[in-house]
C-alpha cells in the first residue's frame, strides 16, 4: 500500500525553475497541500509536470484533526480534488489542532493526551479516511507546551490513535528531538515505542537553539544530533521513505538534494550493518523484506 520511495525533498516555489529545467534525479517530492488547493494557476501547472515524472506525496498543515470545531468539508473536498489530480502515494497531516471558532492560527498546536482527546481524534481520523477513501498518515509535531491534564505520553497517544483509527505514522525525527529537549524526555524511548508496522515516512529538518528551548524552524540543515537519532530510527524501522524539509531561508535545490543523498548513504550504511547483524543471528526477515515479500 505504501511503497518505499527513497529519499525526497519538499517541493518549494523557489526551485520550480531549476526542477523544470534540469529534472534532477531526486527520488520523490512532497508538496504542501494548501499551496495547491486552488482553482488553477502556475503552481498547479508546475505540479502537473512534476507529478508526471516523480512520485508525489501530499502533506498538509491545516487539517486540524484535533480541533473541537467540526471538520471543514470545504477543506476536505479541496484536498480530495487535489489528490484526484496528483495521484499521490499517500496523504499526511499533523497530530495537532490549528485553530478553533473558525479561526486558523497557522500553528501546529499540541493536544492534551487524554482518553477524551483520543476518542475525539480517532473518530475524526476515521471520518477523514472515509471521506478521502484512503488511510492517512499523521505526523508528530514539535511542541513547546504540554497540558496539565495529559494522562499519557505523546508516543502512547500517537500509537493509540493509529491503532484505533487505522491510520499510519509520519515520524519527524527532528520534531522528536526538539520536543525531547523542550519536555525533558528520552528521544530513544519515543522511537522504541513506535509500532514498526504503522510507520511509513520519516521527516528530517533543522532547528534553532533559543537557550531555554529548541525551535523547529526548518531554516537550517539537519543537526548532527538529529542525524544520530535518524540512524537509531533506521536501525529499528529499516529503509523508510525519507524527506528533507526546509521552509525558510531555502537554499539552492542542489543543497537540498545533497542532504537527501546524505540521508540515503547513512540509511544504506545502517541498514546493511543491521541486516548483516541480523543474518549473523540467523534472522532472515530483512532478506524477505528486500525481496519484496
Amino acid at each position, binding site marked *: 500500500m505504501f511503497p518505499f520511495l527513497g529519499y525526497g525533498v519538499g517541493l518549494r516555489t523557489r526551485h*520550480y*525553475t531549476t526542477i523544470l529545467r534540469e529534472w534532477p534525479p531526486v527520488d520523490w517530492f512532497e508538496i504542501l497541500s*494548501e*499551496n495547491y*488547493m*486552488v*482553482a*488553477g*494557476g*502556475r*503552481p*498547479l*501547472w508546475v505540479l502537473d509536470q512534476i507529478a508526471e515524472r516523480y512520485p508525489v506525496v501530499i502533506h498538509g498543515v*491545516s487539517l486540524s484533526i484535533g*480541533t*473541537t470545531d467540526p471538520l*471543514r468539508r470545504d*477543506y476536505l473536498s479541496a484536498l480530495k480534488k487535489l489528490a484526484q489530480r496528483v495521484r499521490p502515494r499517500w496523504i499526511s497531516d499533523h497530530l495537532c*489542532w490549528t*485553530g*478553533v*471558532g*473558525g*479561526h*486558523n*492560527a*497557522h*500553528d501546529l*498546536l499540541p493536544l*492534551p493526551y487524554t482518553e*477524551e*482527546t483520543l476518542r*475525539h481524534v480517532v473518530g475524526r481520523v476515521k471520518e477523514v479516511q472515509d471521506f478521502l477513501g484512503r488511510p492517512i498518515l499523521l505526523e508528530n509535531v514539535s511542541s*513547546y*507546551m*504540554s*497540558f*496539565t*491534564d495529559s494522562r499519557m505520553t505523546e508516543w502512547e497517544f500517537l500509537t493509540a490513535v493509529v491503532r484505533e483509527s487505522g491510520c499510519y505514522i509520519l515520524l519527524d525525527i527532528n520534531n522528536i528531538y526538539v520536543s525531547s529537549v523542550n519536555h*525533558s524526555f528520552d528521544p530513544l524511548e519515543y522511537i522504541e515505542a513506535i509500532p514498526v508496522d504503522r510507520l511509513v515516512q520519516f521527516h528530517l529538518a533543522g532547528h534553532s537553539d533559543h537557550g*531555554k*528551548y529548541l*525551535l523547529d524552524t526548518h531554516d537550517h540543515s539537519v543537526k548532527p544530533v538529529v542525524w544520530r537519532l535518524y540512524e537509531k530510527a533506521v536501525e529499528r524501522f529499516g529503509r523508510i521513505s525519507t524527506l528533507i524539509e526546509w521552509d525558510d531561508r531555502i537554499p539552492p535545490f542542489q543543497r537540498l538534494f545533497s542532504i537527501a543523498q546524505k540521508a540515503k548513504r547513512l540509511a544504506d550504511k545502517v541498514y546493511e550493518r543491521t541486516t548483516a547483524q541480523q543474518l549473523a543471528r540467523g534472522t532472515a526477515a530483512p532478506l524477505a523484506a528486500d525481496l519484496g515479500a
Partner: protein
Amino acid sequence: MQEAQQLLWRLISAPEGVQKGIRDYRIRELPISGDHRLSGAERLDIYAAMYFFRILDCLKEDYPAVLKLLGSDRFHNLVTDYLWRYPPRHWSLRTVGDRLPLFVKASPLFRRYRYLAELAEMEWQLLEVFDAADQAVLREEDLKAIEPARWGGIPLALHPSVRLKSFRWPVDRIREGILKRRPLTRIGPEETPLLFWRQGLKVFYRRISSGEWRLISSLRDGDLLDRLCERASQKRMNPAPTIARLLKGWLRDGLLASGGGRAHRIAGG
C-alpha cells in the same frame, strides 16, 4: 477540551501578548504545565510569537512597498491591529492579507498617506494575478497558421491572469519609487488605469489607454476579431493599424488565451 482550545486561541491571538492577555481576561489558571526553565505562560507565548511573526513575514512578502513606505515598526503595528480586527479564518496563508487594503482605509495612517489603500490594493492584485488559473497562450505563429480570410472569425479570449484595474492615484509610479527608494515628489491624485498579467512565473503591469481598456474589456466574454475591428472603428480608431498594433502587443505579452479546438478548427477549415 473546547474550552481549553478557546482559551488558548484568545491568548495566542491577544494583541499585546500572552501575559497581558492573562491579566486582561482575568485568567487564574492555565491548562499548560511549566517547569524550571519556562512557565506555562512563557511556553504558550512561544506559540503566540510564532502565530504573529509567521503572518507578519507572510504580509511583508505580500506587501513589500507598503512595508517600505511605513517602515518595520509601523508595519508591525499595522499588522497587529489588522490581525486583531481580521484574524485568519482560511486554511491557506495566501489569503491572510486579503483584507489589508480595506483595513488600511480605516487606519490613521491613511490620513497621512492617501494612496496607501490603493497601493495595498495594487500589491494584492499582483498576488492574485500570480495565483490566477493557467492556460496556454495564443502565439503569433498560431495566427499565422490560419488563412487570413478566416481571421475575422477567430475567437479571442483573454488569458485568465489578465486583470484591469483603475486607480485614483498613480500607484505604479508610487510603488516603483518606494521600492527603488526614489523620493516621492509631486504625488497627487491621477487616474491610473492598469493592466496586469502573468507570463510564466512573472507578473507584469502597465498603463493602458482608454481605447485599449475598452477593447480589452470587450474581450472578457470572448469576441471575434471582426467584432473587435468594428468596435474600434465605432470609437473612431483607425481599425486596421490600431488593431494590428494592439494585437501584436497582446500576442507578444501573452494576454490572449489559446482558442484551443475552435481556433484550430478554423485553421483546418
